[in-house]
Structures are given as C-alpha cells and as structure tokens.
C-alpha cells in the first residue's frame, strides 16, 4: 500500500523505525497547520520556520514517544509546535515580538487551496475561528493571550488590570462555550 494511503498512526510506526519516506508523508500532511500555528504565535515567518523545523526534527528523533492512546498524531504534533513556539516567545521580549511581526504575510503566504483535503481544512479553520469569534471579547482575549501568546494567568491579569480570579473564570467560561459550539466539529479537531 502506498504510504500516502496509510493513517497517521501507522506512519508513525514506520517513522519510529527510521523510515524517512513515512516521515515525509507525515510532514507534508501536517506542515501547513503546524506552520500556521507557529506563525500565529510568533508573528514572524523566520521564527515560525525555526519552530516548525525544531518541532519536526524533534518528532523524527523521538517518534517512539508518540502514544496513540493520548490523542491523534496531529494533536501531538501541534502540541510540540505549541511548546516550541512558547519557548521561542519566551526567548524574545514583548517588544521584539511585535517588532518582528510580518505585516501582510497572510496574503503573501496564504495556503493555496489545492486539494479537497486542504479545502476541508480551510473550512474547518473558518468554522473554528467562527466559534472562537462568537465568544464575548473578554473571554476570547484571555484565551488567545494564554494559548497563542504563552502568557500565564497572572501575566494576563496584570496586562489587563483584572483580578486573577476573573481571568481564570473567563478562560473557563470561554472554553466551555467554545466546547459547546464545536459539536460535530470536535471529532475532526481533536482526532
């Protein structure tokens, strides 16, 4: 069977044995969502490239750590990318983060809708963004600062001059509402 027909979990078994072709299929399947997340977090094309490179090489060298019982390969990869991006953010100052922003990059590097899979992923992203956008601003803001900005609840409380308990409450309420809205989408998002 062609590698491209294998499920991610089966590909990861081959990656664990050092199969570079299987790794390349995994990369090609998830590179866009990984790069998109890294860029969303770092706001810099160069930093996003570094993050994705570190994350995928880490995946290649530690494939044995993937445990299918704990979630999908995509979730695992995005977790690695997220952690690497937070490391990258913490290495830079807030000022640097904003200065490094690549204005207009979304237009220049927007993913082309080449295949049905990519169209479906773009639709999925649009629907998920819609779910996030329906949250009250104060809830979506704390969630975005925490997840994409890598800030702790106390840092966010300080930035927004809001009590810590309120920040925690908004995070919880926002996620509860988002979870409720995801409905059928969650199967695709989480698996």
């Amino acid at each position, binding site marked *: 069977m062609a590698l491209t027909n294998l499920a991610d979990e089966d590909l990861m078994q081959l990656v664990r044995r*050092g*199969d*570079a072709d299987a*790794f*390349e299929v995994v*990369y*090609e399947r998830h*590179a*866009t*969502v990984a*790069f*998109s*997340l890294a*860029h*969303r977090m770092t706001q810099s094309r160069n930093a996003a490239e*570094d993050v*994705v*490179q*570190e994350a995928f*090489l880490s995946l290649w*060298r530690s494939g044995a750590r993937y445990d299918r019982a704990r*979630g999908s390969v995509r979730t695992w990869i*995005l977790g690695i*990318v*997220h952690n690497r991006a937070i490391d990258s953010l913490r290495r830079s100052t807030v000022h640097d983060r904003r200065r490094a922003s690549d204005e207009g990059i*979304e237009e220049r*590097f*927007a*993913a082309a809708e080449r295949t049905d899979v990519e169209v479906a992923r*773009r639709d*999925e*992203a649009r629907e*998920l*963004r819609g*779910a*996030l956008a329906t949250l009250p601003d104060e809830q979506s803001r704390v*969630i975005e600062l*925490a*997840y*994409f900005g*890598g800030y*702790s*609840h*106390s840092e*966010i409380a300080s930035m927004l001059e809001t009590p810590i308990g309120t*920040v925690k*409450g908004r*995070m*919880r*309420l*926002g*996620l*509860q509402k*988002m*979870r409720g809205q*995801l409905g059928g*989408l*969650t199967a695709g*998002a*989480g698996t």
Partner: protein
Amino acid sequence: MSPCPRAIDTGAYVLGALEPDEHAAFTEHLRGCDHCRREVSELRVAAEALPLTAEPLDPPAQLHDRIIEVVRAEARGSDEAARRGRRRRAAGRARGRRLAVGRAPLAVAACALLALGVALGALVSGGEDGGPGARTVQADVAVPAASGTLRVQDDGDARLVVRGLPAPPAGRVYQVWRQRPGEDVPRPTDALFSVSREGTATVDVPGGVDGVERVLVSDEPRRGSRVPTGRVVLTAAPA
C-alpha cells in the same frame, strides 16, 4: 455552583496558563477529583481546536527541503557509520575520530545542526580537520561571492564545505557527484544537501575521493538523480 472550588482553574490548566507550581498542584488534585477531571477532559477538546483556528499558511518549500535533507541523512546514518568504521579499521588508522552512537554519526549530526543554522565550528573541526595528512583543495564555484573547499584526509575521506551558496531552487536539493578519469558522466552519490540561511553547508563525500578526478555539485530533484540534470554550481579536483 461547581461542586469543587478548585474547578475555577480548569480553563487555565488546559491552556497551560497556570504557573508551574500551580500546574503541578492541580495535576495532583485531578487524581482525586472526578468533577475537575471530567471538566478538564471536556475543555481540552476546545483547547485542542485552538491551533486549528490559525489562518492556514503554506510553509516555504525550502523548509521542507531543509528538514527532509536532515532526516534522510540521519536515516542513512547507521549504515554510513558502520561502513566508515569498517573502512577505518581495515586501514588500521586511528585518528581519534569518534563516530556518534546511535542513529546519527557525527558528520550527520553536524549536518543536521548546520541546517538548523547553528554554528558548529568547534564540533566539526578540531583534530579531525587538522589531521597530519589532511589537505585543502579550493573548489571552483559558479556563483559569485560563494566559495567551497574540499578537505581531503590521507585515507581519501573528503568533506566539502561551502559558504555563500544560495539555496537550491524550490523543490530541489544539491547533490554531490564523483567523476573518475575516463568517465564521461559523473557518478551520483547519496549526499543530498541544502544550505543554511547564511549559505553554508558541510557534507561528507560518500566513498571518499581516492582515484576521483573531480567532485561536482549540482541542483537536482529532492530525491536526487542518477545523472546530473541541473546546473553544476561547484567543481573540485581532489588530485
């Protein structure tokens, strides 16, 4: 009202927004609290959807090439290491060169780190490049401002070092070739590489250069070619 007063932390927990000591304490709390465990499980579904809300952006093709080059080099690593070890033992030479343990020999690890843009001068040089029989051959490079050298050891092992070389065209990699006297067409090696952002790369010439008239580098499709199809950017005469 929530049956557990600590449930206020569930959102911050799944977002990774608790301070490290709080995170550890809440993880411990989850062991004994069914309510919080259920809530964390529910909220995690929403948190795991967050990365997918990012506007889709295509990564650059060169990123693919850089990563895959390193991975393929490392996949070849064990065989390469074994082959080198056998050759060195047969030659009876001990130059203090240490092969890395596990999947990636030193050269491959160095190549990987260079691809990551990490300066590795100290790691790849030292006694190895400065061995008593080592010599350096300047390469002809068809790119203005770029340079290349071939470090040839006394046992014929050779390492190519390039600087200022532009990245290969999108979807392609550089491939190293060897040509012996009388051969019309150079023979392919499995040495495929790209360059760092600064245009540097260090790559071993598989099989060494004993009896080799010319070492060449051309850009080729990313899995390499059997005969050169792209532009030859570098030529070195090791003899």
